[in-house]
């Protein structure tokens, strides 16, 4: 199985762990992630204004690149996934945005949302299947009690992201079960960590992160997993002493027995 792969900026610098463990795990699972050429930053946040075109163009280039390769596009970072999926939806369904973006970009073949955008977790669930994944686990993380931290961007808006039930998601819990650990469900798993507010208002972000980690710990979690570098950063900074937080790919690599090899690469 070959996929186009969009890592995004942060995965090339501060969040290399998210990236390298995903690649190693994918290889172990028989998935080829082919990084698209000359990918550009997605912009980090989805521009909500319906008249914003410029801020959507970079995403369109990435999406069109995958289309030209005839592949589905896999993402890892929650934010990139959110932005790409929503811009893709705009290109598919909003005539005005599609026309203006294409007029501006003058691509060889105009882009109309043909690419299917997938989060790596969706590949695990829908392509490989958690039952299959379970069979491939060599180091089950037995006894570990893990809280899934979804944050906002993976789930919302629920209808558009079509990722999971935005109020009662199960994909990460199923993932945790597949790698042999025990999921801890806690109500703050889909509440915000503060996002970009932490640049200027660390206290606010801390307040929110303490709610999240406090609840997860109270419900018995020993650690959190996330798919978002910013969530990880915010929680680590504000409440890292309450609960450790890891990228889900790190635990996946560990369970599949490829973590060390990835570290040594």
């Amino acid at each position, binding site marked *: 199985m070959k996929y186009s792969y969009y890592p995004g900026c942060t995965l090339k610098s501060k969040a290399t762990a998210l990236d390298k463990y995903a690649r190693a795990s994918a290889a172990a699972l028989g998935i080829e992630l082919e990084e698209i050429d000359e990918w550009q930053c997605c912009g980090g946040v989805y521009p909500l204004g319906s008249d914003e075109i410029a801020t959507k163009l970079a995403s369109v280039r990435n999406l069109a690149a995958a289309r030209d390769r005839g592949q589905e596009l896999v993402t890892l970072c929650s934010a990139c996934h959110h932005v790409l999926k929503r811009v893709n939806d705009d290109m598919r369904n909003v005539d005005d945005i599609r026309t203006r973006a294409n007029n501006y970009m003058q691509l060889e073949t105009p882009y109309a949302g043909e690419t299917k955008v997938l989060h790596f977790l969706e590949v695990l669930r829908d392509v490989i299947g958690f039952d299959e994944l379970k069979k491939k686990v060599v180091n089950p993380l037995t006894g570990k009690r893990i809280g899934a931290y979804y944050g906002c961007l993976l789930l919302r808006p629920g209808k558009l992201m079509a990722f999971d039930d935005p109020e009662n998601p199960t994909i990460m819990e199923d993932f945790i079960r597949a790698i042999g650990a025990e999921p801890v469900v806690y109500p703050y798993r889909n509440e915000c960590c503060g996002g970009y507010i932490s640049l200027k208002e660390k206290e606010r972000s801390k307040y929110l992160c303490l709610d999240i980690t406090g609840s997860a710990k109270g419900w018995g979690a020993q650690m959190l997993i996330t798919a978002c570098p910013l969530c990880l*950063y915010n929680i680590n900074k504000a409440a890292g002493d309450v609960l450790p937080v890891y990228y889900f790919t790190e635990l996946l690599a560990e369970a599949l027995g490829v973590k060390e090899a990835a570290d040594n690469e």
Partner: protein
Amino acid sequence: MNKSDLLAEQIREISGVNPKKCMKCGKCSATCPSFDKMDIKPHQFVSYVDNDDIEPLTKSKSLWHCLSCFACVERCPRGVKPGKLIDAARQIAERQRGGDYLTPDEIPELFDEDTPQQLIVSAFRRYRK
């Protein structure tokens, strides 16, 4: 059309939100993670736009406190999506005055060794034109 009406029209257009659909239940404000920091609350944004009272919105501190977490967008029972209104008001504010809430000069002191690019990129996207 006077300036305020025009702005209101613009904000409705940019956001794609129809404030008339609001039934004033307050569910948006109920779980807003930045509620305490906001001078104009999410549910009030809807009323202000409905009343074509836009000036206070473009001057509101709330613009810089919305986290774009989409909780209000997801949970609104009427499909009004206040978060989109806040973002539209923010864009109008930025377009009127240029970058405001964040300047590059501030970055070095806000930065630490773990700060992910994502944070800087997102913040610039949201806080500056």
